[in-house]
């Protein structure tokens, strides 16, 4: 099911949570809404679900305008952040709920409902757990029951709000892989909200990066990571370092020295240089960025050092091999292998 969000505005007591947002979601894709808290990502998800009504704008399911339809009519599978499992019902009853509440005319026979629920339990790898109650399940198991419950109604689109937010790191990783498998198996159009960029990059076909009620960039994980359109996206996705620089003569200048980086078509004047700490090479002194180590800490297999660049004490972070002999006050010269320049606003 294609979903089109067109010029949607959502205000909560005059404060705009979403400001003129448009988005095309293609049938069958797994798409992530990514952004810091308060960016409007959950609001957008709830608007698609029909749990909120847009102040202005429209939402299309295929060619049909769903803007004024209720959540029941939209037939969406929604997985809540805290799962919202019905605690007075067993796992089986939770999963069958959506089928059992259907009007008599469209309700499957009880035996069929049970069969379907059992199949879904198999799909989410919880066979044999059908008569447990939510309190007796671990966080990861609850998450899977919530997903099975949402899938039971054969939704036109699957919406997940921070699906792995409340789980510990190990379980998150497993479930992430597993969600990808389920998606590939069932082929549902799936939208999920997350503030975890690693999760979004790993799981999604496309990412929607949001901030302060607006969409900053939409694209594949590669495009978002390698070609961030603006400083916000660069800073939010992946590790980043930035430095104020001058652009002149097609080159980047720091503290009156050319640092050996081309500026391409960035306009002359002040700009902000962005690069990834791990994407640098150490070079001999010369036309390069150079600084003095101000602090260093071990991060996994590398050593991250903070360099003080130039006299005005601008700090950037770069990664060094963990056995690099650099200590405090060591002078290090480096060049980013890839970088982005954004004109100062």
């Amino acid at each position: 099911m294609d979903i089109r969000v067109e010029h949607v505005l959502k205000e909560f007591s005059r404060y705009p949570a979403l400001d003129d947002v448009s988005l095309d979601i293609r049938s069958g894709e797994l798409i992530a809404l990514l952004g810091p808290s308060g960016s409007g990502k959950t609001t957008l998800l709830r608007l698609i679900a029909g749990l909120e009504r847009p102040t202005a704008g429209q939402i299309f399911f295929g060619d049909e305008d769903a803007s004024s339809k209720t959540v029941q009519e939209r037939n969406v599978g929604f997985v809540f952040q805290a799962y919202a499992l019905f605690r007075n019902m067993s796992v089986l009853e939770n999963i069958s709920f959506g089928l059992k509440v259907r009007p008599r005319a469209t309700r499957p026979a009880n035996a069929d409902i049970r069969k379907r629920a059992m199949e879904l339990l198999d799909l989410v790898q919880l066979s044999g757990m059908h008569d447990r109650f939510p309190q007796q399940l671990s966080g990861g198991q609850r998450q899977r029951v919530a997903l099975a419950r949402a899938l039971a109604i054969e939704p036109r689109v699957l919406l997940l709000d921070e699906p792995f937010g409340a789980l510990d790191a190990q379980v998150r990783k497993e479930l992430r892989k597993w969600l990808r498998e389920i998606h590939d198996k069932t082929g549902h159009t799936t939208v999920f909200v997350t503030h975890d960029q690693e999760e979004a990059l790993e799981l999604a076909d496309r990412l929607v990066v949001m901030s302060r009620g607006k969409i900053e960039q939409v694209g594949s994980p590669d495009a978002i990571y390698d070609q961030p359109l603006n400083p916000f996206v660069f800073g939010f996705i992946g590790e980043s370092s930035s430095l104020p620089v001058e652009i002149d003569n097609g080159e980047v200048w720091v503290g009156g020295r050319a640092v050996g980086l081309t500026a391409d078509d960035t306009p002359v004047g002040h700009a902000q240089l962005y690069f990834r700490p791990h994407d640098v090479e150490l070079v001999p002194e010369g036309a390069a960025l150079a600084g003095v180590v101000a602090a260093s800490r071990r991060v996994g297999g590398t050593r991250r050092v903070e360099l003080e660049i130039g006299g005005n004490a601008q700090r950037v972070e770069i990664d060094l091999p963990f056995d690099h002999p650099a200590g405090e006050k060591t002078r290090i010269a480096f060049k980013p292998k890839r970088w982005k320049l954004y004109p100062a606003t």
Partner: protein
Amino acid sequence: MAMYEEDVAVYDSRRPNEPTFAHSRPTTEPGWVKWTLILIGIAFMALVIVLPLVVVFIEAFRKGLETYLKSFSDRNAVAAIQLTLLVAVIAVPLNLVFGVAAAWAIAKYEFWGKAFLTTLIDLPFSISPVVSGMVYVLLFGAQGWFGQYLQDARIQIIFAVPGIVLATIFVTFPFIARELIPLMQDQGSQDEEAALSLGANGWQTFWRVTLPNIKWGLLYGVLLCNARAMGEFGAVSVVSGHIRGKTNTMPLHIEILYNEYNFAGAFAIASLLAMLALLTLIIKTVLEFRYGDELAGTRGH
């Protein structure tokens, strides 16, 4: 680097050597404070709560079991008991519906004047019961606002059962709502949203999801509401008119018997109310013990 080592005795010139009690903790008061407080508590409870309760039963049985039982066969006593039950049977279900509706509105919706409504719900707790009764007399009494209309329509509210029911509803209104509001606010609306997203309509959502989530809290509220509905004296006394065998509830009947120096009879009926209170307390404790996490907390009423 350890900040300090607990097990090594270090002489510290800044701190005098206090006698250390085994198991005494630095944040706890000395033993004599603890025991004084406990003793004051127990003595006060014994004097103010336990003793009167014991007196009720002793006085009730003072003239023997036969007199005790005979008190209940009195025509007026039977009528009082029946009326009390009738009032509770009407008032409690009505407050159940009002309470759930009010709690739902306050917990799940945002609307103008919500804070005011929340405060207003507590009014019956803070207002004197006599005033609660008086307002109905002023509204529906013969000289009241609607008195003339009611008289023309031959409807009697004051000095009749409807007035007693109204006053009881007013006085016991907060019990169920107050119990449910924090509970429902705490639970939020995610369960309901989940049910709606799965295709359930509002009615199905209420019966299958909301009600099971609040059932123990609701039972708890009903219990307290019922105890108060049967025991209310002040407001009911104002609107009842004390017509023997007609508009006397149990508490009013007790007063009449007492004023007539029929102590055995008064305390016999009183013992019935006291037993109701004890029973309520026991069920309440069991509920709190078993379903404490599904109740709104341990706020006493």
